[in-house]
């Protein structure tokens, strides 16, 4: 789950990190009102789930009410990399003396946490890692041991950050670590972390990805769910509890299990077509799940053929067959189905479907055969 900047700052605020005062506005009058309250100058920042806002003109400094109105006017509704700006963060401007970079993430292969710190902040850190790798100080943290103050002090020194601000930097980095661990984040990144002209440390930007699996510890995160970037199809699938990712093709895909669903999308491409979506109905799918999945796929106007690829493990062939038959009763299909069914009780499932076979429901005897058939239908439709 990716947070918008203002959500990330609110999240950081809970762990004591120093964020500048600011509020979110959805319209020009709201932006002006916030700016008047904060005092000038302010920064008006587009809130979107994508980087490169500055270059796209999505971040503007405003000295007075007129400039705030002009900035909000131009940024709201702007398209940044395919994301429409729905709201802006209006924040008190800071005087910047130095820009740093700080982050914690999970080092998957080592099963440890990786902290990165650099005196070269405010720019794309991937580019810095390429051009000047020595300027990034890395620290690996054992999840059981945790991170101590003296290690952080050494880390700040290794990154060659301003010594005079070391105490405050250490405190902020420990708070950032706490937010990462206690907040169950996959990533916390501050770029830039700044030193102001009067020597204070401030969080100027916030990029936070939370672990979807940690919701049981943080029920309040469900509020962030509503602002996740989803197209219309993804939103309706999500509301039905389906694992769905929208794609650009014409073959609707339903499979059981994430790996098989991914593989099905690949095999459709190898057959010369393109999948309209990734959809995993899960290992223990029931009749209702199948009906819901078919409804979502059927509502996608770009879908010209539907490929259902099921390998029964826990989910049994006759349950899948019943799900499809029920769904056919409930849903008026706009595109034909190609069904491939193997695994547990596949014979029973195929026997149940056999009397219903038609131009709208066809059987395939293998995964690649089914993909080829679905691609052919989609191409001719």
């Amino acid at each position, binding site marked *: 789950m990716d947070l918008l900047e203002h959500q990330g700052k609110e999240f950081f605020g809970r762990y004591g990190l120093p964020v500048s005062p600011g509020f979110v506005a959805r319209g020009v009058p709201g932006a002006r009102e916030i700016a008047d309250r904060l005092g000038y100058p302010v920064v008006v920042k587009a809130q979107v789930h994508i980087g490169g806002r500055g270059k796209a003109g999505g971040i503007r400094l405003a000295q007075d009410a007129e400039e705030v109105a002009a900035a909000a006017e131009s940024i709201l509704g702007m398209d940044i990399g395919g994301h429409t700006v729905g709201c802006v963060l209006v924040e008190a401007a800071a005087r910047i003396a130095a820009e740093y970079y700080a982050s914690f993430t*999970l080092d*998957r*292969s080592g*099963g*440890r*946490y990786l902290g990165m710190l650099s005196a070269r902040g405010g720019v794309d850190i*991937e580019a810095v890692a390429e051009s000047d790798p020595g300027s990034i100080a890395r620290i690996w943290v*054992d*999840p*059981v*041991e945790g991170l101590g103050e003296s290690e952080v002090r050494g880390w700040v020194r290794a990154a060659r950050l301003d010594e005079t601000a070391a105490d405050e930097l250490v405190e902020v980095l420990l708070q950032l670590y706490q937010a990462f*661990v206690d907040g*169950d984040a*996959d990533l916390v990144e501050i770029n830039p972390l700044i030193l102001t002209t009067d020597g204070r440390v401030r969080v100027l930007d916030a990029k936070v990805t939370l*672990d*979807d*699996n*940690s919701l*049981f*510890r943080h029920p309040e995160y469900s509020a962030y769910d509503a602002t996740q970037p989803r197209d219309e199809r993804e939103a309706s699938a999500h509301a039905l509890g389906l*694992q769905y*990712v929208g*794609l650009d093709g014409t073959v609707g895909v339903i*499979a*059981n*299990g*994430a*790996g*098989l*669903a*991914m*593989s099905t*999308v*690949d*095999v459709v*491409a*190898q057959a010369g077509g393109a*999948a309209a979506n*990734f959809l*995993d109905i899960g*290992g223990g799918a029931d009749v209702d799940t199948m009906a819901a999945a078919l409804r979502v796929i059927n509502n996608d106007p770009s879908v010209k053929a539907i490929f259902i690829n099921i*390998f*029964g*493990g*826990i989910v049994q062939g006759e349950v899948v067959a019943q799900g499809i038959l029920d769904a056919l009763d409930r849903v008026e299909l706009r595109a034909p189905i190609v069904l491939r069914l*193997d*695994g*547990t009780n596949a014979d029973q499932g195929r026997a149940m479907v056999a009397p219903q076979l038609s131009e709208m429901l066809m059987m395939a005897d*293998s*995964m*690649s055969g089914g993909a080829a058939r679905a691609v052919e239908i989609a191409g001719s439709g």
Partner: protein
Amino acid sequence: MSIWLDERSRVVYQGLTGRAGRFHALRNRAYGTRVVAGTNPSKAGTSVEGIPVFATVGDAVEATRADVSCVFVPAPYVRGAVVEAAEGGVTLVVVITEGVPAKDEAWLGGKLGRDHPEVRVIGPNCPGLISPGKANVGITAGDIALPGGPVGLVSRSGTLTYQALYELKQAGIGVTTCVGIGGDPVPGTSFTDCLAAFEEDPETSAVMMIGEIGGSAEEEAAAFIAEHMTKPVVAYIAGITAPPGKKMGHAGAIVSGGKGTAAAKIETLGAAGVRVGESPAEAGSLMVEVVADL
């Protein structure tokens, strides 16, 4: 031979009294697995279809000499359950549960690595492991695997594992052990761990590995193969068409910052001498060729 699990393994089910735990423990027992115990702190002294229930894994080990645990408890309790299993004395812990936070997985890795280095964890979010004809621990449908080897199988995905077992069975090829390592960011057992065990196993003559986008486990496996494996490896990697930045069902299946793509994994494995199939069916055919040449 097989790796880590055979007909002598004695298995305790944590969460035996729950719906999924009961269903799969009984299914595993019907397959021939020695299912010796279950645990539930509030139901000690009862039994499930003749399987005695104990309060803790420690009690179960003492009474039944269980040496493997299979975990079906809900995600919030997995961290505690795995520690309990390790402290209770089993040496293999198979965690089927999905939805475990990555922080809990990383913490468990550190904790067990230090206090119980003899304990192997497989999963979480995995189908378990099966040594066909000997024992099945987890949720794999046992009848789709042909016993006898010579292939060892390791996979990050559940249903793709079934698909691969099925491809091999269609071709009349048996499997020594099939390990589902799971689709989470910090699995207890890696591809490399499995490859090393298969390299050591005298009855395994070739290995099939099934990976997917996200992380660098396949690249690490490639490095291990290039340096240490004498046995041939065939691979399949899912997600070649997956869009960047999107989580494809599994918590660990995401291409982020241009890293973890299927294309990069396929190239690295190819450079290490691994034959990579473009589809599960093609990987199956490649394995048929490899086995014919053994």
